[in-house]
Every structure is written in C-alpha cells, then in structure tokens.
C-alpha cells in the first residue's frame, strides 16, 4: 500500500487546494441536514408530555454539547500528531479547531441556560453538565490564550499542543469530579433525556442534527484551515501563484 496520499497531507499547498475542493462536499450536506433536522424537530416531532414545546431546544443544545467535546478531542489528536511527527499542517488543524469548539461550547451553554429557565425556573443551575461545559470553555480559552501569548507560530504550536494533550487527560477527571461534587450537594437533576425511551419521531431529528452539526464542523474547519495555512505561508511563493491564478 502506498503512503504518498498521507505524506501529501503534510504539504501546505496540497492541503490548501484539497480543503478548498472538499468544503462544498461538507457544507451543502450540512446545510440540508440542519434544515431537515430543524424541520423534523421543531415542526414534525410531537410536544413532550412533560415539557411541552420547551424540549425542542434540545435539537440545538445536544448537538452543540456533543460537538464541543468532539472538537476538543479532534484538536488534541491533531495537536498530538503535530507534536509527534512535527507536522505543521496538523498544528494548523489544531489551531483552527479551538475557536470553532469554543463557539459550540458557548452555544451549548446559552441554549442550556435558556432551557433551564422554563424547566428549572432559573437561567443557571450548578448542574454537573452545565458546570463541566463551563470548565471546558475555560480550557478552550486557555488554549487560545496560550497561543496568543507567543509571537513565534512554531513555539505557539508546540506549547499549545502540550496543553491540549494535558487537557484531554483532564477532561474525564473534571467531568467525574464535578458529577460527584454535585450529587453531594443537591438532588439529581430533573432531566434524564433518553432514559425514558424517546419516541422515534423525536429521536430521528436529533440524530439528523448531530450528523448535520458534525458535517458543519468539518466544513468550518476546512474554511478556517485554509485561512490558517494562508496566514502561515504568507511568505511562500506558491501563495502568490495561488492568489494570482
């Protein structure tokens, strides 16, 4: 088996062109799936027998929360690849992930808090999942802050890669300690979605939204990656050719 396709991924001009060509293949399906999922979730799915129409925010909240973790994992894996094989493109992927992941985290926090108002009667509850989501946001902010602290891109890459890997080891510890802390201080939260089996008409739109958000992340990542590569390689000749062509 030949590995040239893999080695070519490490080449900035190749990845710049590839990311540009792949973007529509992810962006359009993402748009269609999100529209279909929203239609299914907001219009077709029946209201919840307890929460009425209020539960429908789950169609944005759950995929955002899911993506906030998935983007962090992607970022840490890309950072590790960059650190181990000294692959500049992998570092560019990790750097591009951080703002997207932070945005998904903010979306999950905001929708969770809006959901909390009708369900718990308060915008903020020190619920374990909201709390660990908030800590995750600080992990993203720390990663971006560390990157911004260095003038030299390569040092920023390698230092932030170490931080991303340390963070990924810590995320489960933080999650379980927060759950444990919370179970001592207050009764378990009201919400156990999924435990009483969701009917298919509610579940299908959720799965469609999950897939749509995943594709949306890939599309956003490809766009950001192109910008990141452009910025890093701005002195290179191929950029001049690519821009003037």
């Amino acid at each position: 088996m030949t590995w040239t396709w893999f080695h070519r991924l490490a080449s900035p001009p190749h990845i710049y062109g590839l990311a540009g060509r792949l973007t529509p293949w992810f962006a359009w399906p993402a748009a269609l799936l999100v529209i279909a999922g929203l239609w299914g979730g907001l219009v077709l799915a029946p209201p919840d027998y307890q929460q009425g129409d209020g539960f429908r925010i789950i169609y944005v909240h759950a995929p955002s929360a899911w993506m906030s973790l998935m983007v962090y994992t992607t970022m840490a894996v890309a950072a590790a690849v960059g650190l181990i094989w000294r692959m500049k493109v992998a570092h560019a992927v990790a750097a591009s992930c951080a703002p997207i992941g932070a945005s998904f985290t903010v979306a999950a926090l905001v929708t969770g808090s809006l959901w909390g108002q009708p369900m718990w009667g308060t915008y903020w509850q020190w619920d374990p999942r909201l709390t660990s989501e908030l800590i995750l946001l600080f992990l993203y902010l720390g990663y971006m802050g560390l990157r911004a602290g260095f003038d030299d891109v390569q040092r920023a890459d390698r230092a932030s890669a170490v931080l991303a890997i340390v963070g990924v080891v810590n995320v489960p510890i933080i999650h379980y300690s927060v759950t444990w802390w919370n179970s001592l201080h207050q009764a378990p939260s009201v919400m156990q979605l999924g435990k009483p089996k969701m009917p298919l008409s509610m579940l299908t739109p959720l799965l469609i939204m999950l897939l749509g958000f995943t594709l949306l992340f890939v599309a956003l990542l490809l766009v950001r990656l192109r910008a990141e590569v452009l910025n890093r390689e701005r002195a290179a000749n191929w950029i001049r050719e690519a821009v003037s062509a």
Partner: protein
Amino acid sequence: MRPADQVLASVPTATALGAAPVSGAAAARLALLRDLKLAFRKRGQLVQPLAFFALVTLIFPLSISPELARLREVAPGALWAGALLASLLALEFLFRDDAYDGTLEQYALSGQSLTALLFAKTVAHWLLTGLPLALMAPFAALSLGAPGTAVPGIVASIAVGSVALSLIGSIGAALTLGVKRSGALLALLTLPLSLPVLIFGARATELAISGASIVAPLELLAAIAVLGVTLAPLAAAAAVRISLE
C-alpha cells in the same frame, strides 16, 4: 572570597551536575537541595504565599460576618480558595528565575533526565509552599470557627492536595515560560485543571470540620496526586524544552 562567592560555591551548580558522572537520582537530589538552599537565602519570597493565604482568610470574616457559626459553614471553601490562590501565586517563582539565568538550559543539556530534574524542582516547590500552607491552614481554620478535632484532617487534605496543585501548576508554569506578562494566563491555564483538587479538597475539609471520616475524598486527592507524579513532570519537561528552542 567575598561572602557572596562563598554562597555561590556552596550551591551545587548546574554545570557541576553535568560534568561529574552522577546518577539520575543523585542529580535530582542535588537539584532539590540547590532549590531549597536558594530559597532559604531569599526568605522574603518564601513568606509571601503564606502572608497571602493569611490575608485571603482575613477577607472572609470581613466580607461575610464575624459570627463563627456562619464562618464555620464557609470555612472549607475559604481555606481552599486561599490555598489554591496562594499556590498559584507561588508558581510564578517555580521556573522563572532559573529560565532567566540559564539554569534550565544547563539542566536540559546536562545529559540527565530533564523530567527527573523538574520533578525535583517541583518537590522543592511543594516543600517550600504546599507543606507550609498545610501547616498554617489549621490556624486559619480555627480562626474561622473550625473545631480542634478537625486539625489533622485539614492538614492531611491540604498537604496531599497541594502536591497535586504543585504538579499541575508545574505544567502551566513551564508552558508560560516564553510568554511575556504571563500571570493572568498562568491562572487561566492552571485553575480549570486544578478544579478536581479543589472539589475533593474542600469536601475533605468539610467532612473534617463536621467530624466525619475524610478517607474517601482524601484517597481521591491522593489518586490525583499520584497521577500527577507520573504524568506532570513529563509534560513540564516537554514544555520546558519547547521554551528553550
């Protein structure tokens, strides 16, 4: 010899570590002793985190209430917030001076394991800040209305927890070595990763004050400390090498 030269001659220097064929354990021991000696020649700096801890403790009666019954309720949180912030403050001194005068560079070039040398430095840091904090915490706790029977539990929880705090902090301190004005960034990186220690530590202190067994949270603190011993020096060494490039 001037007194200052005698001081320098009595301190095992980094070049001495590399020149003589010393074993890894001996090198680590020398690095530990060097840090302790240097610290005791700058006693003013040693006292700063302790004074800071005492001041944080003072804030709570002034801002909440002088009633001991109310203070007893917030005592675990007050003690741990103080300990966490004081240990964070002390982290600034962990690697900074050695990075400025080139000692870390000599450590990296010495042929000894940088991981072991940094672990020794972190142990010295704990002996100089974590342990004194643990010994001072009972006075703060008693002043906040904790009963005398809680003293062993409080000392144990802060002693074990501060091991974990020093180790987690060593990663943050090493990562921010190349960053100018790193104080706020260091807090942003270190605090989210330290939250599990805070949760279990405050829980242990709370149980100690109420007279219950603190074994469960103390074991969890010890588990985090052990995990820190195995992984944190590796990450710190990787971060120091990046800062030296």
